[in-house]
Protein backbone atom coordinates (compact mmCIF):
# COMPACT_ATOMS: atom_id res chain seq x y z
CA UNK A 1 0.00 0.00 0.00
CA UNK A 2 1.11 3.52 -0.74
CA UNK A 3 2.23 5.67 2.17
CA UNK A 4 1.17 9.35 2.22
CA UNK A 5 4.75 10.42 1.53
CA UNK A 6 4.65 8.39 -1.68
CA UNK A 7 1.87 10.64 -2.89
CA UNK A 8 3.92 13.69 -1.96
CA UNK A 9 6.66 12.52 -4.31
CA UNK A 10 4.21 11.77 -7.09
CA UNK A 11 4.02 14.34 -9.90
CA UNK A 12 0.47 13.40 -10.76
CA UNK A 13 -0.64 13.91 -7.24
CA UNK A 14 1.18 17.22 -6.87
CA UNK A 15 -0.19 18.62 -10.12
CA UNK A 16 -3.68 17.68 -9.02
CA UNK A 17 -3.17 19.45 -5.73
CA UNK A 18 -1.50 22.59 -7.01
CA UNK A 19 -3.58 23.16 -10.12
CA UNK A 20 -6.41 20.79 -10.60
CA UNK A 21 -8.22 20.43 -13.90
CA UNK A 22 -11.00 18.16 -15.11
CA UNK A 23 -8.67 15.43 -16.31
CA UNK A 24 -6.80 15.26 -13.00
CA UNK A 25 -9.97 15.30 -10.94
CA UNK A 26 -11.30 12.44 -13.02
CA UNK A 27 -8.10 10.46 -12.63
CA UNK A 28 -8.00 10.77 -8.82
CA UNK A 29 -11.70 10.06 -8.43
CA UNK A 30 -11.11 6.78 -10.23
CA UNK A 31 -7.97 6.11 -8.25
CA UNK A 32 -9.86 6.43 -4.96
CA UNK A 33 -12.54 4.06 -6.17
CA UNK A 34 -9.96 1.52 -7.21
CA UNK A 35 -7.82 1.95 -4.08
CA UNK A 36 -10.17 2.74 -1.20
CA UNK A 37 -7.43 1.71 1.25
CA UNK A 38 -5.39 4.75 0.07
CA UNK A 39 -8.04 7.37 0.79
CA UNK A 40 -6.76 8.04 4.29
CA UNK A 41 -3.18 8.39 3.08
CA UNK A 42 -4.25 10.77 0.32
CA UNK A 43 -6.11 12.92 2.81
CA UNK A 44 -3.11 13.01 5.08
CA UNK A 45 -0.88 14.09 2.21
CA UNK A 46 -3.29 16.93 1.37
CA UNK A 47 -3.47 18.11 4.97
CA UNK A 48 0.29 18.08 5.12
CA UNK A 49 0.85 20.28 2.04
CA UNK A 50 -1.89 22.71 2.92
CA UNK A 51 -1.18 23.25 6.58
CA UNK A 52 2.49 22.74 6.79
CA UNK A 53 4.51 21.91 3.72
CA UNK A 54 3.72 25.03 1.71
CA UNK A 55 2.48 27.28 4.47
CA UNK A 56 4.92 26.98 7.30
CA UNK A 57 5.38 30.22 9.16
CA UNK A 58 8.75 30.49 10.79
CA UNK A 59 7.67 33.26 13.08
CA UNK A 60 8.61 31.95 16.51
CA UNK A 61 6.53 32.35 19.66
CA UNK A 62 8.75 35.07 21.04
CA UNK A 63 8.57 37.15 17.87
CA UNK A 64 4.86 36.62 17.76
CA UNK A 65 4.36 37.90 21.30
CA UNK A 66 6.68 40.87 20.83
CA UNK A 67 5.01 41.92 17.61
CA UNK A 68 1.61 41.81 19.27
CA UNK A 69 2.95 43.78 22.17
CA UNK A 70 4.23 46.43 19.79
CA UNK A 71 0.91 46.62 17.97
CA UNK A 72 -0.91 47.15 21.26
CA UNK A 73 1.51 49.85 22.35
CA UNK A 74 1.02 51.78 19.12
CA UNK A 75 -2.75 51.45 19.34
CA UNK A 76 -2.76 52.82 22.89
CA UNK A 77 -0.62 55.76 21.87
CA UNK A 78 -2.89 56.53 18.91
CA UNK A 79 -5.95 56.50 21.14
CA UNK A 80 -4.30 58.86 23.59
CA UNK A 81 -3.44 61.30 20.83
CA UNK A 82 -7.07 61.30 19.75
CA UNK A 83 -8.25 62.53 23.10
CA UNK A 84 -8.39 66.21 23.79
CA UNK A 85 -7.20 67.69 26.98
CA UNK A 86 -9.58 69.59 29.21
CA UNK A 87 -9.03 73.24 29.64
CA UNK A 88 -7.99 74.74 32.89
CA UNK A 89 -6.33 77.88 33.95
CA UNK A 90 -3.97 78.86 36.74
CA UNK A 91 -2.06 81.88 37.88
CA UNK A 92 1.11 81.62 39.90
CA UNK A 93 3.05 84.19 41.87
CA UNK A 94 5.41 81.94 43.66
CA UNK A 95 8.92 80.89 44.41
CA UNK A 96 8.99 77.33 43.08
CA UNK A 97 6.08 75.63 41.49
CA UNK A 98 5.44 72.39 39.70
CA UNK A 99 2.49 71.56 37.55
CA UNK A 100 1.73 68.16 36.13
CA UNK A 101 -0.90 67.70 33.51
CA UNK A 102 -2.53 64.70 32.06
CA UNK A 103 -5.47 63.88 29.95
CA UNK A 104 -8.24 61.90 31.48
CA UNK A 105 -9.00 59.60 28.69
CA UNK A 106 -11.40 56.74 28.94
CA UNK A 107 -9.29 53.66 29.10
CA UNK A 108 -10.46 51.59 26.18
CA UNK A 109 -11.59 48.11 26.88
CA UNK A 110 -8.23 46.56 26.82
CA UNK A 111 -7.29 44.01 24.30
CA UNK A 112 -6.02 40.89 25.99
CA UNK A 113 -2.44 39.66 25.79
CA UNK A 114 -1.28 38.49 29.22
CA UNK A 115 1.67 36.33 28.22
CA UNK A 116 2.86 36.23 31.82
CA UNK A 117 1.13 38.32 34.43
CA UNK A 118 4.28 39.00 36.39
CA UNK A 119 6.29 40.40 33.55
CA UNK A 120 6.95 43.95 32.50
CA UNK A 121 8.44 44.41 29.06
CA UNK A 122 10.37 47.49 28.08
CA UNK A 123 11.82 48.52 24.78
CA UNK A 124 14.72 50.90 24.17
CA UNK A 125 13.60 53.27 21.46
CA UNK A 126 15.81 54.84 18.84
CA UNK A 127 17.28 58.11 19.92
CA UNK A 128 16.25 61.14 17.99
CA UNK A 129 18.14 64.38 17.68
CA UNK A 130 17.41 67.57 19.52
CA UNK A 131 15.91 70.05 17.11
CA UNK A 132 16.01 73.84 17.12
CA UNK A 133 13.64 75.43 14.65
CA UNK A 134 14.47 79.03 13.90
CA UNK A 135 14.00 81.22 10.83
CA UNK A 136 11.89 78.36 9.44
CA UNK A 137 14.92 76.10 9.41
CA UNK A 138 15.74 73.11 11.57
CA UNK A 139 19.12 72.58 13.16
CA UNK A 140 19.81 69.15 14.65
CA UNK A 141 22.01 68.19 17.59
CA UNK A 142 22.91 64.67 18.65
CA UNK A 143 23.74 65.55 22.24
CA UNK A 144 22.23 67.70 24.97
CA UNK A 145 22.70 71.40 24.24
CA UNK A 146 22.94 74.68 26.13
CA UNK A 147 21.42 77.61 24.30
CA UNK A 148 22.05 81.22 25.35
CA UNK A 149 20.15 84.09 23.74
CA UNK A 150 21.58 87.58 23.98
CA UNK A 151 19.81 90.91 23.58
CA UNK A 152 21.12 91.41 20.06
CA UNK A 153 19.29 88.43 18.53
CA UNK A 154 22.24 86.03 18.59
CA UNK A 155 22.11 82.53 20.01
CA UNK A 156 25.15 80.74 21.37
CA UNK A 157 24.82 76.96 21.30
CA UNK A 158 27.21 74.70 23.17
CA UNK A 159 27.23 70.96 22.93
CA UNK A 160 29.40 68.59 24.95
CA UNK A 161 32.86 68.11 23.38
CA UNK A 162 32.03 70.46 20.54
CA UNK A 163 32.85 74.01 19.63
CA UNK A 164 30.39 76.73 20.50
CA UNK A 165 28.20 77.61 17.59
CA UNK A 166 26.66 81.02 17.01
CA UNK A 167 23.51 81.68 14.99
CA UNK A 168 21.33 84.69 14.24
CA UNK A 169 17.76 84.49 15.40
CA UNK A 170 15.10 86.63 13.77
CA UNK A 171 13.12 88.93 15.96
CA UNK A 172 9.64 88.45 14.53
CA UNK A 173 9.21 84.71 14.63
CA UNK A 174 8.73 82.27 17.47
CA UNK A 175 11.43 79.65 17.74
CA UNK A 176 10.91 76.06 18.82
CA UNK A 177 13.23 73.82 20.78
CA UNK A 178 12.34 70.13 20.66
CA UNK A 179 14.02 67.85 23.18
CA UNK A 180 13.11 64.20 22.48
CA UNK A 181 12.90 61.42 25.06
CA UNK A 182 16.33 60.45 26.23
CA UNK A 183 17.72 64.02 25.96
CA UNK A 184 17.82 67.20 28.07
CA UNK A 185 18.75 70.81 27.33
CA UNK A 186 18.99 74.24 28.89
CA UNK A 187 17.98 77.57 27.44
CA UNK A 188 18.82 81.06 28.67
CA UNK A 189 16.30 83.59 27.39
CA UNK A 190 17.10 87.15 26.30
CA UNK A 191 16.05 88.54 29.71
CA UNK A 192 18.43 86.17 31.51
CA UNK A 193 15.76 83.72 32.67
CA UNK A 194 17.08 80.18 32.60
CA UNK A 195 15.12 77.10 31.59
CA UNK A 196 15.95 73.43 32.11
CA UNK A 197 14.03 71.27 29.65
CA UNK A 198 13.43 67.66 30.55
CA UNK A 199 13.11 64.74 28.11
CA UNK A 200 10.18 64.82 25.72
CA UNK A 201 9.63 68.58 25.76
CA UNK A 202 8.68 71.16 23.18
CA UNK A 203 9.16 74.84 23.97
CA UNK A 204 8.29 77.89 21.90
CA UNK A 205 10.09 81.13 22.67
CA UNK A 206 10.82 84.52 21.07
CA UNK A 207 14.29 85.90 20.42
CA UNK A 208 13.31 89.05 22.30
CA UNK A 209 10.38 89.83 24.56
CA UNK A 210 7.84 92.60 23.89
CA UNK A 211 7.51 95.76 25.95
CA UNK A 212 4.59 94.74 28.14
CA UNK A 213 5.02 91.09 28.95
CA UNK A 214 7.21 88.04 28.55
CA UNK A 215 5.61 84.93 27.13
CA UNK A 216 6.76 81.42 26.29
CA UNK A 217 4.83 78.25 25.55
CA UNK A 218 5.50 74.74 26.80
CA UNK A 219 3.65 72.61 24.27
CA UNK A 220 4.70 69.32 25.84
CA UNK A 221 6.97 67.90 28.49
CA UNK A 222 8.52 69.37 31.59
CA UNK A 223 10.63 72.36 32.45
CA UNK A 224 12.16 74.08 35.40
CA UNK A 225 12.63 77.81 35.10
CA UNK A 226 14.37 80.55 37.04
CA UNK A 227 12.70 83.77 35.97
CA UNK A 228 14.67 87.01 36.12
CA UNK A 229 12.91 89.58 38.24
CA UNK A 230 11.18 92.36 36.27
CA UNK A 231 8.10 93.94 37.84
CA UNK A 232 7.17 95.89 34.72
CA UNK A 233 6.99 92.82 32.53
CA UNK A 234 5.04 89.89 33.94
CA UNK A 235 6.16 86.45 32.80
CA UNK A 236 3.68 83.99 31.34
CA UNK A 237 4.12 80.33 30.61
CA UNK A 238 1.39 79.00 28.36
CA UNK A 239 0.54 75.37 27.94
CA UNK A 240 -2.13 73.78 25.84
CA UNK A 241 -4.40 73.63 28.88
CA UNK A 242 -3.58 76.55 31.17
CA UNK A 243 -1.39 79.56 31.81
CA UNK A 244 0.96 80.35 34.64
CA UNK A 245 1.68 83.93 35.54
CA UNK A 246 4.76 84.82 37.54
CA UNK A 247 6.78 87.81 38.61
CA UNK A 248 10.41 86.72 38.88
CA UNK A 249 10.67 83.36 40.54
CA UNK A 250 11.69 79.71 40.15
CA UNK A 251 9.25 77.01 39.29
CA UNK A 252 8.74 73.76 37.50
CA UNK A 253 6.02 72.86 35.04
CA UNK A 254 5.24 69.36 33.90
CA UNK A 255 2.97 68.99 30.93
CA UNK A 256 3.28 65.32 29.95
CA UNK A 257 0.26 63.73 28.44
CA UNK A 258 0.57 60.51 30.41
CA UNK A 259 0.82 61.72 34.02
CA UNK A 260 -1.85 63.09 36.40
CA UNK A 261 -2.53 66.83 36.13
CA UNK A 262 -1.11 68.39 39.22
CA UNK A 263 0.55 71.41 40.73
CA UNK A 264 3.26 71.22 43.35
CA UNK A 265 4.20 74.39 45.13
CA UNK A 266 7.63 74.58 46.69
CA UNK A 267 7.86 78.12 48.01
CA UNK A 268 5.68 81.20 48.10
CA UNK A 269 2.07 81.22 47.05
CA UNK A 270 0.13 80.17 44.01
CA UNK A 271 -3.45 80.19 42.96
CA UNK A 272 -5.07 77.79 40.55
CA UNK A 273 -8.02 78.58 38.39
CA UNK A 274 -10.13 76.26 36.39
CA UNK A 275 -13.13 77.12 34.33
CA UNK A 276 -16.27 77.59 36.39
CA UNK A 277 -14.54 77.08 39.72
CA UNK A 278 -13.31 79.35 42.47
CA UNK A 279 -9.66 80.28 42.52
CA UNK A 280 -7.70 77.95 44.77
CA UNK A 281 -4.64 78.99 46.79
CA UNK A 282 -2.17 76.32 47.81
CA UNK A 283 0.68 76.49 50.28
CA UNK A 284 4.33 75.36 49.91
CA UNK A 285 4.95 71.60 49.75
CA UNK A 286 1.38 71.08 48.75
CA UNK A 287 0.40 69.17 45.64
CA UNK A 288 -2.92 69.83 43.96
CA UNK A 289 -4.28 67.15 41.68
CA UNK A 290 -6.78 68.27 39.11
CA UNK A 291 -9.83 66.18 38.39
CA UNK A 292 -12.04 66.06 35.36
CA UNK A 293 -14.85 67.90 37.13
CA UNK A 294 -12.64 70.97 37.44
CA UNK A 295 -11.83 70.60 41.14
CA UNK A 296 -8.49 70.05 42.87
CA UNK A 297 -7.51 67.68 45.63
CA UNK A 298 -4.54 68.76 47.70
CA UNK A 299 -1.98 66.95 49.82
CA UNK A 300 1.49 67.48 51.31
CA UNK A 301 4.47 66.15 49.32
CA UNK A 302 8.25 66.03 49.33
CA UNK A 303 9.12 68.69 46.77
CA UNK A 304 12.54 67.19 46.02
CA UNK A 305 10.86 64.28 44.23
CA UNK A 306 9.49 66.67 41.65
CA UNK A 307 12.52 68.77 40.80
CA UNK A 308 15.46 66.41 41.32
CA UNK A 309 15.57 65.39 37.63
CA UNK A 310 17.37 68.68 37.03
CA UNK A 311 20.20 67.59 39.31
CA UNK A 312 20.57 64.23 37.62
CA UNK A 313 18.78 61.95 40.05
CA UNK A 314 15.28 60.76 40.79
CA UNK A 315 14.02 60.62 44.33
CA UNK A 316 11.21 58.29 45.36
CA UNK A 317 9.24 57.70 48.51
CA UNK A 318 6.93 54.70 48.37
CA UNK A 319 6.45 55.50 44.73
CA UNK A 320 4.77 52.85 42.61
CA UNK A 321 6.85 50.85 40.19
CA UNK A 322 4.72 52.08 37.29
CA UNK A 323 5.54 55.70 38.08
CA UNK A 324 9.23 54.92 38.55
CA UNK A 325 9.39 53.16 35.20
CA UNK A 326 7.52 56.00 33.53
CA UNK A 327 10.10 58.54 34.69
CA UNK A 328 13.05 56.35 33.82
CA UNK A 329 11.44 55.56 30.49
CA UNK A 330 11.28 59.23 29.59
CA UNK A 331 14.83 59.89 30.64
CA UNK A 332 16.36 56.98 28.72
CA UNK A 333 13.79 56.83 25.93
CA UNK A 334 12.36 53.48 26.84
CA UNK A 335 8.81 52.37 26.47
CA UNK A 336 7.45 50.10 29.19
CA UNK A 337 4.16 48.39 28.88
CA UNK A 338 2.13 45.98 30.94
CA UNK A 339 -1.40 45.00 31.70
CA UNK A 340 -3.26 46.85 34.44
CA UNK A 341 -3.39 43.77 36.63
CA UNK A 342 0.31 43.05 36.76
CA UNK A 343 1.04 43.04 40.48
CA UNK A 344 4.65 44.04 39.93
CA UNK A 345 3.67 47.57 39.02
CA UNK A 346 2.11 48.05 42.46
CA UNK A 347 5.41 47.42 44.20
CA UNK A 348 6.71 50.58 45.71
CA UNK A 349 10.14 52.06 45.64
CA UNK A 350 11.87 54.40 48.09
CA UNK A 351 15.26 55.99 47.64
CA UNK A 352 17.33 57.78 45.06
CA UNK A 353 18.24 56.64 41.61
CA UNK A 354 21.12 58.43 39.95
CA UNK A 355 20.52 58.95 36.27
CA UNK A 356 23.87 57.63 35.16
CA UNK A 357 24.98 57.31 31.55
CA UNK A 358 25.20 53.61 32.15
CA UNK A 359 21.65 52.39 31.82
CA UNK A 360 22.46 49.00 33.35
CA UNK A 361 23.46 50.71 36.60
CA UNK A 362 20.10 52.42 36.72
CA UNK A 363 18.12 49.25 36.11
CA UNK A 364 20.19 47.40 38.69
CA UNK A 365 19.24 50.04 41.25
CA UNK A 366 15.58 49.83 40.29
CA UNK A 367 15.63 46.03 40.57
CA UNK A 368 17.28 46.32 43.98
CA UNK A 369 14.83 48.88 45.30
CA UNK A 370 11.79 46.95 44.12
CA UNK A 371 13.05 43.40 44.77
CA UNK A 372 12.70 42.43 41.17
CA UNK A 373 14.99 41.06 38.51
CA UNK A 374 15.69 42.51 35.17
CA UNK A 375 17.16 41.10 32.01
CA UNK A 376 18.19 42.95 28.90
CA UNK A 377 18.10 41.41 25.45
CA UNK A 378 19.08 43.73 22.64
CA UNK A 379 16.58 46.55 22.90
CA UNK A 380 14.14 44.77 25.16
CA UNK A 381 14.02 44.82 28.91
CA UNK A 382 12.18 42.18 30.89
CA UNK A 383 11.35 42.75 34.54
CA UNK A 384 10.24 39.77 36.57
CA UNK A 385 9.78 38.59 40.17
CA UNK A 386 12.88 37.75 42.05
Amino acid at each position, binding site marked *: MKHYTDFLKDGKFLRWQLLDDD*ALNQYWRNFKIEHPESIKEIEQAIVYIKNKGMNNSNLNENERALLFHKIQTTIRQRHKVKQRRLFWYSVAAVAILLIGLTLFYHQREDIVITPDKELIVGELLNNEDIQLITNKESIYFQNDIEVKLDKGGKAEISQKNKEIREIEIKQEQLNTLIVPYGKRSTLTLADGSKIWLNSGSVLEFPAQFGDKKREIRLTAGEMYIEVTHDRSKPFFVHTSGFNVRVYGTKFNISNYTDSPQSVVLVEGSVSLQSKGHKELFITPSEKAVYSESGTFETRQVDVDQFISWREGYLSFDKTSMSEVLQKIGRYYNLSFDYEQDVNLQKRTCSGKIYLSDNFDNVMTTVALLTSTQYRKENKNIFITNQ
Partner: protein
Amino acid sequence: MDLAALYNLYVNDLFTYGCYLGFEREIVKDAIHDVFVKVTVDEGLLRHISHIKFYLFRSLKNRLIDLHKYQKDEIALEKVDPSVDMPFNIHIDVESLLIEKEDQMQVKNAIEQMLTSLTDRQREIIYLRYIQEYDYNQIAELLHISVHGCRKLVSTAIHSLREKFGFLITFLTLMS
Protein backbone atom coordinates in the same frame (compact mmCIF):
# COMPACT_ATOMS: atom_id res chain seq x y z
CA MET B 1 -13.76 39.26 17.27
CA ASP B 2 -11.18 41.05 19.36
CA LEU B 3 -7.72 41.97 18.20
CA ALA B 4 -5.89 39.21 20.04
CA ALA B 5 -8.07 36.51 18.51
CA LEU B 6 -7.74 38.03 15.06
CA TYR B 7 -4.00 38.35 15.44
CA ASN B 8 -3.49 34.80 16.63
CA LEU B 9 -5.65 33.44 13.87
CA TYR B 10 -3.96 35.18 10.94
CA VAL B 11 -0.50 36.41 11.90
CA ASN B 12 1.24 33.26 10.68
CA ASP B 13 -0.48 33.30 7.29
CA LEU B 14 0.23 37.01 6.86
CA PHE B 15 3.86 36.59 7.83
CA THR B 16 4.32 33.69 5.43
CA TYR B 17 2.67 35.61 2.60
CA GLY B 18 4.92 38.61 3.17
CA CYS B 19 8.06 36.48 3.28
CA TYR B 20 7.06 34.64 0.09
CA LEU B 21 6.79 38.03 -1.60
CA GLY B 22 10.50 38.40 -0.98
CA PHE B 23 10.56 40.83 1.93
CA GLU B 24 12.88 40.72 4.92
CA ARG B 25 11.40 39.36 8.14
CA GLU B 26 11.61 42.70 9.93
CA ILE B 27 9.92 44.56 7.08
CA VAL B 28 7.10 42.03 7.01
CA LYS B 29 6.68 42.42 10.75
CA ASP B 30 6.53 46.20 10.43
CA ALA B 31 3.93 45.91 7.69
CA ILE B 32 1.84 43.51 9.79
CA HIS B 33 2.12 45.97 12.66
CA ASP B 34 0.78 48.77 10.46
CA VAL B 35 -2.08 46.64 9.16
CA PHE B 36 -3.32 45.65 12.62
CA VAL B 37 -2.96 49.18 13.95
CA LYS B 38 -4.98 50.51 11.04
CA VAL B 39 -7.68 47.90 11.39
CA THR B 40 -8.08 48.74 15.08
CA VAL B 41 -7.63 52.50 15.13
CA ASP B 42 -9.97 53.17 12.21
CA GLU B 43 -12.88 52.49 14.44
CA GLY B 44 -15.49 49.94 13.61
CA LEU B 45 -13.45 48.33 10.91
CA LEU B 46 -13.35 45.05 12.77
CA ARG B 47 -17.11 44.99 12.98
CA HIS B 48 -17.90 46.10 9.47
CA ILE B 49 -15.57 44.01 7.41
CA SER B 50 -17.12 40.76 6.36
CA HIS B 51 -14.12 39.07 4.82
CA ILE B 52 -11.65 40.06 7.47
CA LYS B 53 -8.95 37.63 6.42
CA PHE B 54 -9.06 38.84 2.84
CA TYR B 55 -9.08 42.42 4.05
CA LEU B 56 -5.91 41.75 6.08
CA PHE B 57 -4.19 40.07 3.15
CA ARG B 58 -5.04 42.93 0.82
CA SER B 59 -3.91 45.57 3.32
CA LEU B 60 -0.65 43.73 3.90
CA LYS B 61 0.06 43.41 0.21
CA ASN B 62 -0.70 47.08 -0.44
CA ARG B 63 1.50 48.10 2.44
CA LEU B 64 4.31 45.91 1.12
CA ILE B 65 3.90 47.29 -2.40
CA ASP B 66 4.31 50.79 -0.98
CA LEU B 67 7.45 49.73 0.83
CA HIS B 68 8.68 47.98 -2.30
CA LYS B 69 8.18 51.09 -4.45
CA TYR B 70 9.96 53.13 -1.85
CA GLN B 71 12.92 50.76 -1.80
CA LYS B 72 13.07 50.73 -5.58
CA ASP B 73 12.90 54.50 -5.81
CA GLU B 74 15.93 54.69 -3.60
CA ILE B 75 17.96 52.42 -5.82
CA ALA B 76 16.86 53.43 -9.30
CA LEU B 77 14.28 55.93 -10.38
CA GLU B 78 12.75 53.68 -13.00
CA LYS B 79 9.10 52.95 -12.48
CA VAL B 80 8.37 49.38 -11.59
CA ASP B 81 5.11 47.52 -11.71
CA PRO B 82 4.91 45.68 -8.39
CA SER B 83 2.34 43.22 -9.65
CA VAL B 84 4.84 41.95 -12.20
CA ASP B 85 8.06 42.77 -10.50
CA MET B 86 7.74 41.17 -7.07
CA PRO B 87 9.17 37.71 -6.53
CA PHE B 88 7.12 34.91 -5.07
CA ASN B 89 8.91 31.93 -3.63
CA ILE B 90 7.17 29.26 -1.66
CA HIS B 91 9.29 27.66 0.99
CA ILE B 92 8.79 23.92 1.24
CA ASP B 93 9.01 22.56 4.75
CA VAL B 94 9.69 18.85 5.08
CA GLU B 95 11.25 18.85 8.53
CA SER B 96 7.99 17.89 10.16
CA LEU B 97 7.58 14.81 7.97
CA LEU B 98 8.42 11.87 10.16
CA ILE B 99 10.42 10.05 7.57
CA GLU B 100 14.03 9.57 6.58
CA LYS B 101 16.16 12.45 5.33
CA GLU B 102 16.38 10.94 1.88
CA ASP B 103 12.60 10.74 1.56
CA GLN B 104 12.28 14.29 2.84
CA MET B 105 14.61 15.48 0.10
CA GLN B 106 12.63 13.61 -2.53
CA VAL B 107 9.38 15.22 -1.45
CA LYS B 108 10.99 18.64 -1.34
CA ASN B 109 12.53 18.21 -4.79
CA ALA B 110 9.32 16.96 -6.33
CA ILE B 111 7.32 19.98 -5.16
CA GLU B 112 10.08 22.49 -5.84
CA GLN B 113 10.70 21.23 -9.38
CA MET B 114 7.10 21.84 -10.18
CA LEU B 115 7.00 25.28 -8.60
CA THR B 116 10.22 26.50 -10.20
CA SER B 117 8.86 25.73 -13.64
CA LEU B 118 6.22 28.41 -13.07
CA THR B 119 6.40 32.21 -12.93
CA ASP B 120 6.30 34.24 -9.72
CA ARG B 121 2.70 35.29 -10.31
CA GLN B 122 1.63 31.73 -11.06
CA ARG B 123 3.20 30.57 -7.82
CA GLU B 124 1.41 33.36 -6.01
CA ILE B 125 -1.89 32.28 -7.52
CA ILE B 126 -1.29 28.70 -6.42
CA TYR B 127 -0.59 29.88 -2.92
CA LEU B 128 -3.67 32.09 -2.78
CA ARG B 129 -5.99 29.65 -4.51
CA TYR B 130 -4.87 26.32 -3.15
CA ILE B 131 -3.48 27.14 0.30
CA GLN B 132 -5.57 30.19 1.23
CA GLU B 133 -8.61 29.15 -0.81
CA TYR B 134 -9.43 32.55 -2.24
CA ASP B 135 -11.69 32.83 -5.27
CA TYR B 136 -10.70 34.35 -8.61
CA ASN B 137 -12.18 37.75 -7.80
CA GLN B 138 -10.17 38.02 -4.63
CA ILE B 139 -6.98 36.74 -6.21
CA ALA B 140 -7.34 39.20 -9.08
CA GLU B 141 -7.67 42.02 -6.57
CA LEU B 142 -4.60 40.90 -4.64
CA LEU B 143 -2.57 40.66 -7.84
CA HIS B 144 -3.87 43.93 -9.24
CA ILE B 145 -4.93 42.20 -12.43
CA SER B 146 -8.28 41.41 -14.06
CA VAL B 147 -10.24 38.26 -13.30
CA HIS B 148 -9.78 37.30 -16.93
CA GLY B 149 -6.03 37.76 -16.67
CA CYS B 150 -6.04 35.69 -13.52
CA ARG B 151 -7.87 32.79 -15.17
CA LYS B 152 -5.48 32.99 -18.07
CA LEU B 153 -2.47 32.72 -15.77
CA VAL B 154 -4.00 29.64 -14.19
CA SER B 155 -4.69 27.93 -17.49
CA THR B 156 -1.19 28.58 -18.79
CA ALA B 157 0.20 27.22 -15.53
CA ILE B 158 -1.91 24.07 -15.83
CA HIS B 159 -0.75 23.76 -19.38
CA SER B 160 2.93 24.11 -18.62
CA LEU B 161 2.80 21.66 -15.70
CA ARG B 162 0.99 19.19 -17.90
CA GLU B 163 3.64 19.56 -20.61
CA LYS B 164 6.56 19.17 -18.28
CA PHE B 165 5.30 16.68 -15.74
CA GLY B 166 2.15 15.14 -17.04
CA PHE B 167 2.67 13.31 -20.28
CA LEU B 168 1.58 10.04 -18.80
CA ILE B 169 -1.65 11.35 -17.37
CA THR B 170 -2.66 13.06 -20.56
CA PHE B 171 -2.01 9.80 -22.27
CA LEU B 172 -4.06 7.80 -19.75
CA THR B 173 -6.89 10.27 -19.87
CA LEU B 174 -7.04 10.02 -23.62
CA MET B 175 -7.18 6.26 -23.40
CA SER B 176 -10.02 6.12 -20.90
